[in-house]
């Protein structure tokens, strides 16, 4: 479903100073939003692998308004007590309506079992953006909603998040030089009475991006992406939790070719995965996904077609 949405992010900053020019500290570019800190790394390392059949049809009625029909058939995992994963074959149909305008974006998706997934993004003023994300189900107490208010300053961004069941969070990120930005976040969750604080740093140049993030929940994430050429980029990632002593390292690649896009990664948990998106003709994309988990002996293969 990520393919149906246009990128929400602003384009990468074009004005890169040459090495011998002085850095103008009063005119720094706006940093990347805090939740997109790891954007380049996650494009190759957290690709959208799926299992089963996927068919998406998007019908544009005019430039701003479109409807989407989506069919998914395949085994879905059910959480179980034992170490074995239990998969139950399911099939569902999802109907969606999207409305895109420069200042307002509304996306709604409803499934055959009554679940509604809604997203809203509105530019209230030049600098203030409100975003909302909600998942509503028929079962009581399983719905959740989250509202974000983003303020974009000249070289900083601040965000306030409010979620249901008393979740409050705030993030702040500031451009320190043309290439380095530092940020932090704080959150407080009411239901499991937890609060946390985290810090992040991102260093980018036109050929590479390196980010690091530490949080008081014990998670440390570091990643590095090198753009080898216009078509190829390689990424590597290291995740470590200092409370539970879980470590995961992964290496991935992303080839953007003329007619297709191939992304793959291999993990220290023994997981190798790949996703191929091939453009068969204008508006028709063919998807192939494979994920092999050798440690848990779980092999997932999927294929799909995206129209429009």
């Amino acid at each position, binding site marked *: 479903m990520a393919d149906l949405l246009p990128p929400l992010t602003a384009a990468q900053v074009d004005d890169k100073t040459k090495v011998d020019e002085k850095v103008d500290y009063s005119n720094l570019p706006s940093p990347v939003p805090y939740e997109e800190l790891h954007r380049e790394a996650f494009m190759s390392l957290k690709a959208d692998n799926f299992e089963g059949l996927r068919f998406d049809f998007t*019908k544009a*009625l*005019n430039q*701003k*308004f*479109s*409807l989407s029909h989506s069919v998914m058939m395949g085994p879905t995992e059910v959480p179980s007590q034992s170490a074995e994963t239990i998969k139950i074959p399911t099939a569902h149909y999802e*109907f969606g*309506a*999207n*409305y895109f*305008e420069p200042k307002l974006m*509304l*996306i*709604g998706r*409803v499934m055959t079992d*009554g679940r*509604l997934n*809604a997203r809203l993004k509105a530019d209230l003023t030049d600098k203030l953006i409100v975003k909302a994300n*909600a998942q*509503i189900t028929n079962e009581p107490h399983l*719905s959740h909603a989250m509202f974000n208010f983003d303020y974009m300053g000249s070289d900083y961004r601040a965000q306030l998040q409010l979620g249901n069941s008393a979740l409050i969070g705030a993030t702040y990120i500031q451009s320190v030089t043309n290439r380095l930005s530092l940020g932090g976040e704080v959150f407080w969750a009411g239901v499991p009475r937890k609060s946390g604080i985290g810090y992040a740093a991102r260093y980018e140049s036109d050929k590479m991006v390196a980010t690091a993030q530490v949080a008081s929940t014990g998670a440390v994430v570091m990643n590095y992406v090198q753009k080898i050429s216009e078509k190829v980029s390689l990424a590597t990632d290291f995740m470590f939790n200092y409370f539970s002593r879980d470590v995961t390292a992964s290496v991935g690649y992303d080839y953007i070719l003329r007619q297709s896009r191939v992304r793959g990664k291999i993990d220290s948990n023994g997981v190798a995965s790949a996703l191929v998106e091939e453009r068969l003709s204008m508006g028709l994309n063919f998807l192939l996904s494979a994920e092999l988990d050798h440690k848990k002996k779980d092999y997932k293969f999927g294929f799909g077609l995206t129209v429009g």
Partner: protein
Amino acid sequence: MAAKGPLKLKFKAKAKGSKGGSNSTSSSSSSVSSKFEVIKDWTNWSLKKAKVATHYGLIPLIIIIGMNSDPKPDLFQLLSPF
């Protein structure tokens, strides 16, 4: 259905009893807390109604907004599969 009758009465009696209890202690100090109770109940009620309204009304709302944007699409284009 017959069992529901006495249950309903019990519930009403309990609610009345608790309300009466809180009212009896609502002297100067507890009037503020009962106001909070009222506000909490009112926000819960309005959130529940907002959730139901969103659940049923969001997709029709998006469709109405989309059908009134320009260039105005046909009803036939909305319903046909191609």
